[in-house]
């Protein structure tokens, strides 16, 4: 029985069982998970709490959970990594802009550093902000004075907490941050923010048309131009000058799994 105040006004509330609750708990602790792990997690929760039931299709499973979470302004949101198109899932707050998740972990000056880095990232052409440029802004930070050395460590802390990602001395947003903060970013930088011409989602990294300037996410480009020998800009029809990335293939990923440094080892038995 779901109390009336828990029901969404337009949607029927789904049924939560321990399978779903366990899933939520585990998803929460990870912050963000790739689809492959999410599926394993789901199977694990079934095995543990209801081993005789058939594992529901992931999409339905998640929609079920989301219908219950709706009145809490929380949802399991699905996204795609900007660089290689992996599907990812995170539990996000809809109502707050979830940077408040950060607010409890960081001091005022650290949050301001993040804000500054975020602005540089959004304004940049590549979606990356160099460490140097970010650190040059330490004098402008609110709150306690921060030295550059300290700021370097704070940036690493952001990386550890999956808010930023570092590549060769440059920083961009972690896919989790994009999932969680999209709303906030669009609202606080309405003019500077870039949007993908295909999926209309927030764009930090992507390819742009050199003629008309429209931008597209790498995975969106991959899908759109898949098996197209003469890729052309969907907007101005000019020849698309960039290398077309490959569409993400989960099967190939799994096989290559062991060799990747940050992938978990494949196991023969699940728990």
């Amino acid at each position: 029985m779901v109390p009336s105040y828990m029901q969404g006004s337009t949607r029927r509330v789904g049924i939560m069982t321990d399978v779903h609750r366990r899933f939520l708990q585990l998803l929460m602790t990870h912050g963000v998970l790739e689809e492959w792990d999410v599926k394993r997690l789901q199977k694990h929760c079934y095995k543990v709490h209801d081993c005789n039931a058939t594992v529901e299709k992931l999409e339905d499973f998640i929609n079920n959970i989301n219908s219950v979470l709706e009145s809490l302004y929380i949802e399991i949101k699905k996204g795609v990594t900007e660089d290689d198109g992996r599907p990812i899932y995170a539990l996000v707050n809809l109502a707050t802009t979830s940077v408040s998740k950060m607010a409890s972990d960081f001091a005022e000056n650290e949050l301001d550093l993040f804000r500054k880095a975020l602005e540089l990232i959004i304004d940049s052409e590549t979606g990356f902000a160099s460490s140097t440029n970010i650190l040059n802004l330490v004098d402008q930070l609110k709150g306690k004075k921060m030295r550059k050395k300290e700021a370097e460590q704070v940036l690493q802390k952001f990386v550890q907490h999956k808010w930023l990602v570092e590549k060769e001395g440059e920083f961009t947003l972690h896919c989790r941050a994009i999932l969680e903060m999209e709303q906030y970013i669009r609202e606080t930088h309405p003019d500077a923010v870039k949007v993908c011409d295909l999926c209309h989602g927030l764009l930090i990294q992507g390819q742009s048309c050199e003629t008309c300037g429209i931008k597209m996410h790498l995975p969106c480009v991959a899908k759109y131009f898949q098996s197209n020998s003469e890729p052309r800009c969907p907007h101005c029809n000019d020849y698309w000058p960039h290398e077309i990335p490959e569409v993400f293939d989960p099967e190939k990923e799994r096989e290559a799994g062991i060799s990747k440094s940050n992938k978990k080892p494949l196991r023969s038995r699940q728990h």
Partner: protein
Amino acid sequence: MPRGQKSKLRAREKRRQARAETKGLEGAQATAAAEGESPSSACLPFGGEPQNLPAADIPSTPLAPQGAPSTTNTMAADSCTYPDEDSSQDEKNATSSKGTKGRSGDPLNDKVVLMVQFLLQKYQKKEPITKADMLKLVTKNYKPHFNEILRRSSEYMELAFGVDLKEVDPIRHWYALVNKLELTFDGTMNNEEGMPKTSLLMIVLSVIFMQGNCAPEEEVWKVLNMMGVYADRKHFIYGEPRKIITEDLVQLNYLEYQQVPNSDPPRYEFLWGPRAHAETSKMKVLEFLARLHDTIPSAFPSWYEEALKDEEERARARAAARARTAAAMASARSRAMARNFSHTK
């Protein structure tokens, strides 16, 4: 809204924005809540056009730490941006459309939402919760409804997350969030073999059993490694396996972890802890092992014998305990009857 109010609101909002930048937003939320109406423009520390914000948005705390003494109180300032009317429902953008659906216009619900988010954060960080912390989330106007808000929040936590909010210290009013889904073996779960810590524990207990009731640490890790669980690698379910088996489960008295006597360099071994003896049995562990290998317990003859003996001993112990209880109850009853007789005479 009467005309005078609009300019008052704007002035207040300006002051609030100024304050919000440097301090937490407690002042803002207090006045906003007191107004009874909180237009979504009210709590934007960064200013800017609020019109295109979804009604449910709380942009007030993006990256703004709470200046209040309890620094983990992120949610304290958020209460002001849940207007009671969905006036900006039409202007929300696609990504936030979910946020305003299902709004019953119930202002208490907004506080419940905040409370739940606060509790979730505390749960993830494994931090204790005081009543004072929770009270801070609830602004003056809603304090009389605190118990109701708390009750509804607990229900949500249970319903959606399987987490219980328990008052662990009724004097100092400390609360803890307990995972309902991770319980002991004693039959309160329908599937005792499954829980993450539990199945990890079962595996370790079975290794100990197979090793003659005392297992060298290397043997335990050998088995765990075969299942993809490594001492120095974070596991997608178990988290930190080494910490779990050498610290957490030891603290909970499920395992004993001790240095092998006279070992140099020191080596360690595992034994069953008293709680494991109390809550499970060799037979149950053997059953678990058998399931893991897709076979039946008797497929391991010598362990099966040992487990059977253990079962017999337990059965005898239970019978003896029952006899003692029955005897005690009988004598208590006869005493009571004797008293009644003498009384009614």
